[in-house]
């Protein structure tokens, strides 16, 4: 319910009481906007829902609200909605820009000053969410139906143990075309030699060499940057370490450029012979 001026002896209706209760519980009547909007006095105590695919603003002016008034704001649309100081002052400890599905509240300190608090916001930079984890078995792992909700993907595989001395490779979107450019360096630690990695192939050659069998102390990680974009190729970076293989202790630091512009929704990790065990975690990174 918008802010009211009640009078002595006034009888409230059931609808008014329901609306008041809703407002008291943090909801309140909502007005949907599809374009930039300037708040009016009647918005006090209500919820303004912005729903626009384009960027919008909600402007705050003076002499419309009293100290203690609040306006709840929801950005439902894909366009960023920015709370903008018109003639009033708007302060915040965070951001005045609200991405899709973010919510916040304007609290008026006076008729000319308000504080904006975001109740929800996107995860900050570096936030990692475990979106798939489990144990390896058989000859491959397919991670399918990966949503585009994150900035990067980060796959970690630990304690890899193989029945055959083979390498481990990965593909995106089940694509086995010659679309992967691997480049980096592999270092044999026990008898130091460094080998440049530089090849165009049908997969990401995560191990570059064969693992020894019966050794659990091997790890791989693969990070894919901006995996959900559908307009350019994808850059990835991978590291691997093996305590024992045909060449002794081994470490790899390399990158991959995947040419196709399709968003990545699937990652496969496989070996060319035998079976493997180990554990995997796929993180979505913001």
């Amino acid at each position, binding site marked *: 319910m918008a802010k009211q001026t009640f009078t002595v002896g006034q009888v409230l209706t059931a609808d008014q009481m329901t609306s008041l209760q809703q407002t008291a519980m943090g909801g309140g009547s909502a007005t949907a906007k599809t374009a930039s909007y300037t708040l009016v006095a009647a918005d006090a105590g209500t919820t303004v829902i912005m729903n626009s695919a384009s960027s919008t603003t909600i402007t705050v002016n003076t002499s419309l609200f009293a100290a203690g008034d609040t306006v709840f704001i929801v950005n439902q649309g894909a366009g960023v909605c920015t709370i903008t100081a018109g003639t009033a002052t708007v302060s915040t400890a965070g951001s005045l820009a609200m991405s899709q599905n973010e919510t916040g509240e304007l609290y008026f300190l006076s008729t000319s000053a308000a504080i904006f608090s975001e109740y929800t916001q996107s995860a900050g930079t570096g936030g990692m969410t475990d979106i798939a984890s489990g144990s390896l078995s058989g*000859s491959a*792992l397919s991670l399918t139906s990966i949503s585009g909700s994150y900035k990067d993907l980060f796959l970690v595989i630990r304690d890899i143990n193989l029945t055959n001395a*083979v390498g481990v490779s990965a593909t995106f979107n089940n694509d086995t075309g010659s679309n992967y450019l691997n480049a980096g360096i592999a270092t044999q630690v026990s008898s130091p030699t460094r080998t440049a990695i530089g090849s165009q192939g049908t997969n990401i050659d995560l191990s570059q060499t064969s693992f020894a069998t019966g050794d659990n102390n091997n790890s791989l990680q693969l990070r894919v940057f901006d995996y959900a974009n559908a307009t350019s190729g994808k850059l990835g970076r991978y590291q691997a370490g093996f305590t024992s293989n045909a060449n002794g202790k081994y470490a790899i630091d390399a990158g991959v450029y995947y040419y196709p512009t399709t968003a990545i929704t699937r990652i496969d990790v496989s070996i060319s012979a035998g079976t493997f065990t180990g554990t995997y975690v796929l993180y979505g990174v913001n």
Partner: protein
Amino acid sequence: MKKIEHNVETGEVKEVELTAEEVAQRAKDAIAYAKAKADEEQAAAEKAEAKAAIAERLGLTDAELAILLA
């Protein structure tokens, strides 16, 4: 031959048989891997042989050659 299929959206994890295409790809990968490994070993052997020939021509021991190349 089986693999783990993990649907990230639903969280469903199941063990499934490799498709015919995946089995064929696995065979191709095995051949490519064996060839790459053989090529790598051959290149390493040729390099070692060439190094030894140069060392012999210069009259250097392996230790002296290692110091020069370090």
